[in-house]
C-alpha cells in the first residue's frame, strides 16, 4: 500500500489557448484548456500542470479566469506556472483556485523569493521549476546547468546544487525539465532525473522529451522520478492517460487506477 507514482499532463497555455511547441518553436493550437483538463481528469490524471506562456500583461487576466474556470470543474491538484514573480502573483493564482505555483526565473533572479513564498504560503504549494541543460563535454563526468529564456541563456549555476539550495529555502517539489530533451520525443534525460531525485528530499517531477509510454516507465524506474509530466503525447490523441497508467502498471509501477 504505497504512494502511487503520478502522471501529470501539462498544458502550455497562451492567451487562454493550449499550445505545444517543439523546442518552443512551431506552436500548434491544441484547444480550450478547461475542456482538455476535464478530459484528462476523466482519464485519471493525478494532477494538472498549467504553464502560462503569455507574455503580455493583459493576457494575465485571461490566465486567472481560465484557472478559475478549471478549478470549478476539475477536482484534482492544479499547479500553475509562468511569470510568477511576486507574492501577489502567487496569492492571485491561489485565490483563482491553483493549489501550487511553480517558480522558475524569479528564483534565479532573487533566490530569497522562494524562501518568502514558502514562509507565506507553505512549502506544499511552492514548486521550483528547473530548466537544465547538459554542459559537460563527452567523456567528462556529467554536469548540468540552469538555463533561462527557453534554454538559450546559461546562468553558470550547477543544476544539482541549485535544486538542493532551493529545497533548503522551502521548495516543496521540483519540476525538472531537460532543455536538451524538451520537445524532442527522445525520452527524459535519465541521468539528470536520477541525479536530482537522489540529491533532494522532496518529490521530483520529470519533464521534457516524452515520445512514448515506455519513456514514462523509464523516468520512474531508471530516473527515480516521483511523478512524470508529458504534454504532446496526450494532446494530440496518441495516448490517453489511462493507457499510460496501464503501461506503467504492467511494468510493476504503482499507479492510481
Amino acid at each position, binding site marked *: *500500500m*504505497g*504512494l*502511487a*507514482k*503520478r502522471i501529470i499532463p501539462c498544458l502550455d497555455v497562451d492567451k487562454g489557448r493550449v499550445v505545444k511547441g517543439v523546442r518552443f518553436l512551431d506552436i500548434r493550437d491544441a484547444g480550450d484548456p478547461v475542456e482538455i483538463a476535464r478530459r484528462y*481528469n476523466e482519464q485519471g490524471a*493525478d494532477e494538472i500542470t498549467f504553464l502560462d506562456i503569455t507574455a503580455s500583461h493583459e493576457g494575465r487576466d485571461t490566465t486567472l479566469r481560465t484557472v478559475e474556470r478549471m*478549478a*470549478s470543474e476539475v*477536482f*484534482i*491538484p492544479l499547479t500553475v506556472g509562468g511569470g510568477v514573480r511576486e507574492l501577489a502573483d502567487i496569492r492571485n493564482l*491561489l*485565490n*483563482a*483556485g*491553483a*493549489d501550487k505555483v511553480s517558480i522558475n526565473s524569479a528564483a534565479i533572479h532573487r533566490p530569497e523569493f522562494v524562501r518568502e513564498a514558502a*514562509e507565506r*504560503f*507553505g*512549502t*506544499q*504549494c511552492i514548486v521550483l521549476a528547473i530548466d537544465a541543460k547538459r554542459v559537460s563535454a563527452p567523456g567528462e563526468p556529467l554536469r548540468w546547468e540552469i538555463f533561462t529564456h527557453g534554454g538559450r541563456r546559461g546562468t553558470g549555476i550547477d543544476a544539482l546544487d541549485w535544486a538542493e539550495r532551493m529545497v533548503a529555502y522551502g521548495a*516543496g*517539489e521540483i519540476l525538472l525539465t531537460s532543455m536538451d530533451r524538451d520537445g524532442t520525443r527522445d525520452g527524459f534525460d535519465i541521468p539528470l532525473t536520477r541525479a536530482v531525485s537522489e540529491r533532494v*528530499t*522532496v*518529490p*521530483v517531477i520529470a519533464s521534457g522529451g516524452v515520445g512514448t509510454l515506455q519513456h514514462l516507465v523509464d523516468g520512474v524506474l531508471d530516473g*527515480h522520478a*516521483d*511523478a512524470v509530466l508529458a504534454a504532446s503525447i496526450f494532446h494530440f490523441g496518441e495516448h490517453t492517460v489511462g493507457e499510460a497508467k496501464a503501461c506503467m502498471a504492467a511494468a510493476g509501477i504503482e499507479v*492510481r487506477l
Partner: protein
Amino acid sequence: MSQRIAVVDYGMGNLHSVAKALAHVAPEADIMVSDDPAVVGAADRVVFPGVGAIRDCMGEMHRRGLGPVLRTAASSGRPMLAICVGLQALMEHSEENAGVDCLGILPGRVRRFPDGMQDEDGNTLKVPHMGWSRVAQQPHPLWAGIPDGERFYFVHSYYVDPAARSHVAGSCEYGLEFAAALAREALFAVQFHPEKSHSAGLRLLRNFCNWDGRC
C-alpha cells in the same frame, strides 16, 4: 431554508478549492467563506480547512478570535469537517515550527515524518508525503459509497498521532502507519484533501453535506 455551510477562513492559503468543491456537491447550500466567529457559530455545518505552517495558522486563528467558536462547534452536535492543517490544529500540540500549542479539541500530538524512511525496496521516501495513497477505513457514515482502500490526495510533512485509538476512522501507510482520518461524535477530520481527490473526495464531501452528525 437552504443549509448554511461555513468554511472557516483564517487568512491562510487556499480555501477556494474547498468552497468550489462544496458548491459542486451541494449546489443548493449557502456556502460562506468567513472569518467571523458569529457566522461560523450560526452555520449548520462547519468546514475547517487549512494549508501552510501551523504557527501562522494558530496565530491568525487566535487573532480573529476563532478558537472558542471552533471548540464550541466541535462539541455542538453540528457536523464539522476538518481538513489537513485543520485536522492538525485540532490536536494538543504540533512539533512544527519548533513546537506550537494547538486547539486541544482532540487528544494527541502532531509529529514530523522522520528523515530517511524507506519503502520495501529500500528507496528513500520523500517528505512531504505528496500524492495519492490508500486509506484503510474504520466504519463511519462519511465513507458511504467509497471502497475501503480507495486512494486520496495527500500533501503534508507532519502527521497526527492521536492519544485515543478509538478516534481513528482511517489509516494510511507512508514509511509508518498514521491516522488519515479521526472522528468523534459529529466531528470528522482528515489529513488528505477530499476537495482534490476526484470522485472519492467529492463523494466524501457529499456524504458530509448530507450527514446528520450521528455515527
